[in-house]
């Protein structure tokens, strides 16, 4: 979504067959004292893939990252690289590099020396070192600061140095620990473009930890949603957004109208359900028994106002209680008595929202836009 107007060259990955997985986390578990930070986590990482680990703080995403890097030994489980377990290898023996949250640039070395560090300690010959460092500084556009010390750089520039320092080692896998957390919103969007372009150019797999769902959606080929040390769902951004497995995932990615209801009857993939006295239809790929509790997720952009919805659709009457202008759209709050709905309507130049606060309106959504999920026990 942010990539449309960049000028960088891109080599599009063929979309046919998914590349093979080269790194597998198998039942990875980590305890701190008696509490599990990560529990039975299994995940395959494919060549050249951009994965984000997404979840609230304390969900175990950073612990997972640090186990892959080798800073924390797992309590149980395996990390298979090309089918070899690397759990017992120290960080320096793993073909993995990390971009740290605080960048961790060496304060006593210049930008150039920082980027050169990984090649120097590995004994790469000087001439090759020079060439690779220069190339990488060019790629992240910090060549002009090569002789400066990190403390004289801005946050965004330091971030680029950290990226160059890790990537110059040509890792099989790059780990990024909340890399954009310290940057302001505008810079964050710029860096997202840099990250995505670099990842495609170099065709290196990235595993990126974040708690920012917009960042995860903008960057990832696949998002891993975590909660309390376990994976809730792994899917593409579109898949997660439109087909969340439970209310947690639905709520964590973007804004949604979440309801709890009961199945009245099911016909194919359409379920008639009841919630707080309202009857509506929703779509599912699961089987619900009559009377079974279920969760409903309805994205605000799926709600239509005063439009010609058919009798098959869900149509209700409500009162407009709030209108917020958000540039690209209007955000409305609609009260139907039992529930406050959030709706988005596109904003057109020179027109208002088309409704006023206090106005009674009819609104609704198509049954297939209403996503149903199993309620957890």
């Amino acid at each position, binding site marked *: 979504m942010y990539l449309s107007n960049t000028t960088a060259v891109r080599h599009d990955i063929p979309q046919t067959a998914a590349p093979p997985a080269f790194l597998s986390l198998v039942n990875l578990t980590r305890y701190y004292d008696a509490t599990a930070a990560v529990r039975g986590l299994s995940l395959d990482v494919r060549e050249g893939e951009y994965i984000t680990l997404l979840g609230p703080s304390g969900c175990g995403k950073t612990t997972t990252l640090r186990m892959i*890097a*080798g*800073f924390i030994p797992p309590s149980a489980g395996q990390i298979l690289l090309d089918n070899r377990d690397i759990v017992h290898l*120290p*960080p*320096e023996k793993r073909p*993995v*590099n*990390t971009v*740290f*949250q*605080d960048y*961790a*640039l*060496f*304060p*006593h070395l210049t930008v150039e020396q920082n980027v050169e*560090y*990984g090649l120097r*300690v*590995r004994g790469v010959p000087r001439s090759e070192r020079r060439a690779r460092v220069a190339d990488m500084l060019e790629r992240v556009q910090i060549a002009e600061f090569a002789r400066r010390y990190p403390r004289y750089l801005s946050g965004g520039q330091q971030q680029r140095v950290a990226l160059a*320092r*890790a990537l110059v*080692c040509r890792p099989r896998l790059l780990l990024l620990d909340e890399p954009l957390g310290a940057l302001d919103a505008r810079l964050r969007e710029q860096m997202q473009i840099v990250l995505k372009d670099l990842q495609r150019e170099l065709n290196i797999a990235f595993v990126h930890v974040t708690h920012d769902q917009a960042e995860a959606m903008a960057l990832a080929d696949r998002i891993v949603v975590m909660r309390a040390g376990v994976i809730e769902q792994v899917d593409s951004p579109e898949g997660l957004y439109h087909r969340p497995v439970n209310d947690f995932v639905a709520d964590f990615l973007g804004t949604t109208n979440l309801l709890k209801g009961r199945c009245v009857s099911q016909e194919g993939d359409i379920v008639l359900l009841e919630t707080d006295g309202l009857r509506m239809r929703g779509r599912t790929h699961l089987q619900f028994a009559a009377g079974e509790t279920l969760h409903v997720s309805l994205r605000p952009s799926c709600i239509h106002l005063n439009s010609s919805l058919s009798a098959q659709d869900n149509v209700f009457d409500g009162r407009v209680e709030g209108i917020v202008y958000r540039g690209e759209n209007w955000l409305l709050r609609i009260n139907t008595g039992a529930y406050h709905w959030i709706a988005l309507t596109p904003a057109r130049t020179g027109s208002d929202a088309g409704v006023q606060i206090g106005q009674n309106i009819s609104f609704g959504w198509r049954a297939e836009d209403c996503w149903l999920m199993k309620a957890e026990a």
Partner: protein
Amino acid sequence: MSQLRRLVFWFYALLIYGFLFLPMVVIALFAFGRGDNPTRWPPDLLSLQWFEAILRDEAMLKALRNSFIVGLVAVSIAALLGTAAAFAIHRYRFRGSAIFYGLTMLPAFVPGLVLGIALLIFFSSLDVELSMLTVIIAHVTFLTPVILSAVLSRLERLSPSYEQASRDLGANAWQTFGLVTLPNLRTTLIGALLFAFTLSFDNIVLTFFVTSFEKTLPLEFWGRLRFGLTPVTNALATIMVVFSIVLILAANRFMNAE
């Protein structure tokens, strides 16, 4: 700041510094005096004869040499022990590490008199003859905590992610120590060494207990005072004060540099 407050501020500062340094200034003035009465005011300026007298004074020069030997050797040993201990305490939270830290710091806070007597009893119970070596050992005991605390506080402010980043980039533990940790400790270490040397150079109580015939500069100085003040002792005191001030200023510069 208003005019009055500025005035009060400077007056106050002058008072404090006067209180602290006036006695030393008086001694320095006498050191540059022409007469041989070291206490009659005002001194009859200006002459360097008493400083020249020190240069001709064999015993004094020998004491100076001893002080430097003791200082250099003791500080070197303390630097190794103190740095190693700081790393141990910082890196490993072992059972009793707080007690270990407390015990290591103790000699810096125990009165020199007590430490001196304790060491003297210790040495004589082991039949160790008092010499320069016992002086050096004694100095190491109270210099180690000085280095330890300086290095430890620096380590605690040093982000652990530097070392992790180094390992992550392919450096082993030794490379990491040499290329990342040590360079970041350098200024702190130099500062701590200078400060420790100053403490060693000025020490008298502890040295008094554990030396035999060999005298360090402060001991030589003390010995002469028993025969009364002379312009030579004034000159010597002036040199020691200036030397200490220079060392402390340098130490401060390094410790605050980072």
